[in-house]
């Protein structure tokens, strides 16, 4: 029998080949290499489905395939880890990448963009890097592909390099995430120093060793006699630095809204399936380690809950379609972090999945609107597009309902489970409860900004000429929208936990069973194991488990509907007006993103000042001393001036003579010639 796992490298390499082809021969190919990219991602997608089916058939794969550098202390290797989590992620990434490639035909080729080979090369490399990250079997390999993902985001965000904005945004994206990656890299190095391995899975993996060490059955290195639990927390927080950067969590979220300078399909890829998803995926991948350190989990949950709320408030006042979506991404990844921190491993992966589909949908929908609006993104110039772009409208609406968490769309189920996990575990843990409350508070805000966006864009009367006569879009735009629209509606079906609990229908929580290795997987990488080693216990409100499920769902749905209703009231009118003036000074604060960008610019300038000071010090003091010594010695020997002929060759002869004289002196002094 042919083994699907033998083709896992091909899943990664196909998009890489499309990168090479587009880079090398893109300009000679039709559509600038687009078809190569489509074929490659389609191939990867089909292989991924096959791999997932093989995992469902009860098999998993964890093998080292390449020794990057050998060593006696430890080997640095590349390997493949295919288990339910990575198989699921492979399918998501390849599907979204495929749809983004198809959509790009409409967004880039049909719009007459130049530099298409570079664009498709970037997409290919981006997809390949992400896939390499997903299947990585150890932390070092994950880091390496994580960084490559960052490179690709730099290249694609800065795609329009002849304009001033995109290069600046690209720089910011790489630099801010690099700052996070610094901590991640220290974490990787610390993991090697502590455990001598960075493998994710197996008996000799670092989560397993950490678990054993905490039980006292294994011995690991800690610096300076630090207590083991404390040190593991430090290591966990260090790796978390990379997650906070890539997944755009507070306070390293600032690069993401700027990254909207990139072409819209790239935004879809970055937000739904690649770069931003990478951070959260990493926490899920090494959840067996995080579950051991309660403090880290608490920090993750709190950052997540805070980011969910914080980013949502900024989305309320934005005028540009993609800006609203950017802040919604930050906020939604906050939910995933909240879930992970709250012990809701499955909930986080569930939300990662549904979000991948509905956020890709929303970005591609926004791209469709942008094509129609001749690249004007200001929502106040839109209005009434509903009748002109029906496919875009209805799919975008499906995505919006999912984002807002309205029953029965996909986002409702996943967000509800995130909040449920935070609630039941938070009832015994006040810090977690704080995270839950922030997440809950973000629900109406999310619904409000989402539908503000929908109403301003599609409802009411057209507010400009362009909106009255928008450019039509073709199949290559509509096709991906319809696929993703279907998924945004139906993905919730993979994990109907509340229905199961309320109606007692056993077995419809497919994702739970999938991630619990019910069909197959690798020991130690299952949701049950994580729950066993995790610190949390569940508490319930009135009515026990069923009651808590119902109350939690009712509250979050009620809040979402309230937010939606408010947006309806304000913006679902023929000629909507800005109501943000009512916010007063708060509006400015929100519009300027709490002045955090200014803070980072300030830090950058102060760093430059310090660098300037160092330079002055270096030129004035250090080099001054050097020059001072030489001029003192020259002035001291006025006669020596006679030999300052300025003829370079005489200097050299002099220096050589000097050296010989020195040797003679030393030789005589040392008694060699005696």
């Amino acid at each position, binding site marked *: 029998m042919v083994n699907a796992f033998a083709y896992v490298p091909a899943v990664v390499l196909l998009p890489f080949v499309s990168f090479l082809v587009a880079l090398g021969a893109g300009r000679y190919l039709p559509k600038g290499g687009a078809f190569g990219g489509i074929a490659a991602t389609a191939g990867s997608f089909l292989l991924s489905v096959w791999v997932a089916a093989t995992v469902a058939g009860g098999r998993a794969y964890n093998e080292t395939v390449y*020794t*990057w*550098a*050998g*060593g*006696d*202390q430890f080997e*640095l290797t590349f390997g493949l880890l295919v288990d339910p989590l990575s198989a699921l992620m492979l399918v998501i990434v390849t599907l979204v990448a495929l749809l983004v490639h198809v959509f790009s035909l409409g967004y880039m080729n049909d719009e007459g963009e130049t530099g298409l080979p570079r664009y498709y090369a970037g997409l290919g490399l981006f997809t390949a890097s992400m896939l390499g990250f997903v299947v990585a079997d150890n932390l*070092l390999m994950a*880091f*390496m*592909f994580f*960084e*490559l993902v960052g*490179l690709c985001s730099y290249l694609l965000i*800065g795609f329009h*390099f*002849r*304009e*001033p904005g*995109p*290069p600046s945004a*690209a*720089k910011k994206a*790489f*630099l801010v995430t*690099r*700052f996070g990656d*610094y901590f991640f*890299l*220290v974490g*990787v*190095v*610390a993991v*090697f*120093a*502590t455990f001598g391995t960075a493998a994710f899975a197996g008996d000799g993996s670092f989560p397993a060793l950490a678990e054993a060490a905490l039980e006292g059955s294994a011995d690991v*290195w800690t*610096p*300076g006699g630090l207590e083991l639990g404390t040190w593991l927390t430090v290591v966990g927080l260090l790796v978390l630095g990379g997650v906070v950067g890539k997944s755009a969590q507070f306070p390293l979220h600032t690069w993401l809204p700027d990254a909207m300078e990139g072409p819209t399909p790239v935004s879809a890829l970055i937000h739904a399936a690649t770069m931003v998803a990478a951070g959260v995926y990493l926490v899920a991948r090494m959840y067996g380690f995080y579950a051991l350190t309660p403090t880290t989990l608490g920090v993750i949950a709190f950052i997540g809950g805070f980011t969910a709320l914080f980013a949502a408030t900024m989305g309320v006042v934005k005028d540009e379609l993609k800006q609203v979506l950017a802040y919604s991404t930050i906020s939604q990844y906050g939910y995933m972090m909240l879930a992970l921190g709250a012990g809701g491993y499955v909930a986080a992966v569930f939300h990662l999945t549904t979000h991948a589909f509905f956020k890709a949908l929303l970005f591609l929908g926004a791209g469709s609107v942008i094509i129609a609006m001749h690249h004007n993104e200001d929502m106040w110039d839109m209005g009434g597009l509903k009748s002109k772009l029906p496919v875009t409208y209805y799919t975008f609406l499906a995505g919006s309902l999912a984002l807002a968490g309205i029953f029965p769309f996909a986002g409702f189920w996943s967000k509800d489970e995130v909040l449920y996990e935070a609630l039941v575990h938070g009832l015994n843990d006040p810090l977690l409860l704080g995270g839950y409350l922030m997440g809950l508070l973000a629900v109406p805000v999310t619904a409000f900004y989402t539908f503000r966006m929908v109403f301003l864009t599609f409802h009411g009367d057209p507010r400009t000429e362009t909106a009255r006569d928008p450019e039509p879009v073709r199949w290559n735009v509509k096709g991906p929208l319809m696929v993703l629209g279907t998924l945004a509606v139906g993905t919730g079906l993979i994990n109907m936990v509340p229905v199961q609990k309320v109606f007692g229908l056993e077995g419809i929580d497919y994702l739970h069973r999938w991630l619990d290795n019910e069909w197959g997987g690798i020991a130690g990488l299952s949701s049950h194991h994580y729950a066993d080693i995790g610190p949390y216990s569940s508490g319930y409100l009135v009515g026990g488990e069923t009651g808590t499920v119902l109350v939690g769902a009712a509250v979050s749905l009620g809040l979402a509907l309230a937010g939606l209703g408010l947006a309806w009231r304000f913006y679902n009118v023929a000629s909507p007006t800005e109501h943000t003036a009512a916010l007063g000074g708060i509006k400015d604060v929100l519009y300027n993103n709490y002045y955090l960008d200014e803070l980072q610019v300030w830090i950058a300038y102060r*760093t*430059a000042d310090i*660098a*300037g000071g*160092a*330079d002055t010090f*270096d030129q004035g003091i*250090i*080099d001054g001393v*050097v020059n001072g010594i*030489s001029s003192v010695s020259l002035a001291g020997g006025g006669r020596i001036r006679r030999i300052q002929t300025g003829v*370079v060759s005489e*200097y*050299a002869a002099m*220096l050589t003579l000097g*050296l010989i004289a*020195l040797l003679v002196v*030393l030789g005589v002094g*040392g008694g*060699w010639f005696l």
Partner: protein
Amino acid sequence: MILEALIAFTFLAALVVLLAPDAWAGRLAFALSAVPFAGSLYAWSQFDGAGNALTGGTIAFESQFEWIEVGGRSVSWFVGLDGISLPLVVLTTFLVPLAIVSAWTPIDTRQSQFYGLMLFMEANLLGVFTALDFFLWFVFWEAVLVPMYFLIGVWGGPRRKYAAIKFFVYTNAASLLMFIGFMSLVFALGDSVSSFALPEITAAIANGGLGEWFGIAPGTVALGAFLAMFAGFAVKVPVVPVHTWLPDAHVEAPTPVSVLLAGVLLKMGTYALLRYNFTMLPNQASALAIPIAAIAVISVIYGAMLALAQKDLKRIVAYSSVSSMGYVILGLVVFTEYGVGGATFQMVAHGLISGLMFMAVGVVYNATHTRMVGDMAGMADRMPITVGILVAGAFGYMGLPLMAGFAGEFFIFVGAFGAPSLPYAPAFTALAMFGIVIVAGYLLSAMQKTLFGPFRLETDYEVGRAPVHDVAPLAVLLAAIIVLGVAPDVFFEMIRDAAIPVVEGVSADV
């Protein structure tokens, strides 16, 4: 005899080129320089060394002839290779032909002398990395300075004389210090050594052969010698605070000379530190681990901050060398397999990457005639391929995975973090690692300002694409950087083999 052939051929080639007409000296030099490269590849394929050449390992291509006798000790022609020196020999012979090609455009006067001196320098560099006798090594070491001095002083920029003299005097004073340091060791060893052969001296020190010297205790002599040699080599590396000759030399030097200066000459310093300070006197190095690690960290961070302040592209790359060499020092001082091995690997990696950066900046300069960040913008519009490679090289400098720089830096970091012999190793390592953020800061902002955005450059001529012979060496270097990044073991395996005895030299006593 292959090493003799390699060195002799290169000297001869230098002579031939020196006498050739200017018109085709460049082509001839390139053709001739390909031979040592082929020779070093052949040596690589035949390499049968094991362990470290200084600590009793099997020396590949070993050949030793009695030369003269000085003060009862024999000086011999003694050359050979181990896993540490072979990669540096390959690096040297690989970079020189590329540097020669990169000179075709900018060097337009006295070509035969220029290329002759380049080859003369290569021959001496090969001597430095192969010599295993102190006197032989010292002759090559000093002789490298002479062509370098002329190359900067004759073909350099407006302040070339200042830079050349500063370079010469600075490094020569350092050589004196180092020479005194080493000689004090030899004298203190007294009768326990009969030659200047480095393996013999290393073994004598390890066996406790150091005696009193003019009434100074052996331990003090060793410490003094260590400090004198460290100071001498530190200038060459260079580490803060003896680095100020470097930016001046780089800014004034023509591009191909900068390529060799950053790519190979700086490695003479780290190579000598590794051979003399860390292999011969490991216990002194270990005793001074904290101050040395502090110097390393300061070089990394301070060098990077200085790079951040520069407005001249070449100065930026020059200061970032100070930063990168700091990593090498850190790797050496931790005395672990990955630390010392990574430091050696980083020498090669940095040689390629800084070579690429200087070359790429040079190609841009050929077109713009300015290197100031504020004078140009949007160069990507006019020179897409050059800029593409420059961007790739910059990411290599930032330590992008699967490029050589990441491998070197990661080996050093992972070797340093848990190093048992360096107190506070995790703190030193984490501090030094912050360099990877600053390097991204200055390279990304310099690129954003000069390469991207709307094109702007005030010239009275049309700025077009660079000629193929300018771009080809860049592409070759980039390919080498990626190959070493994807498969570092092509060098790292032999480096490790030679580094482990160095590490064991210290752990035996600690």
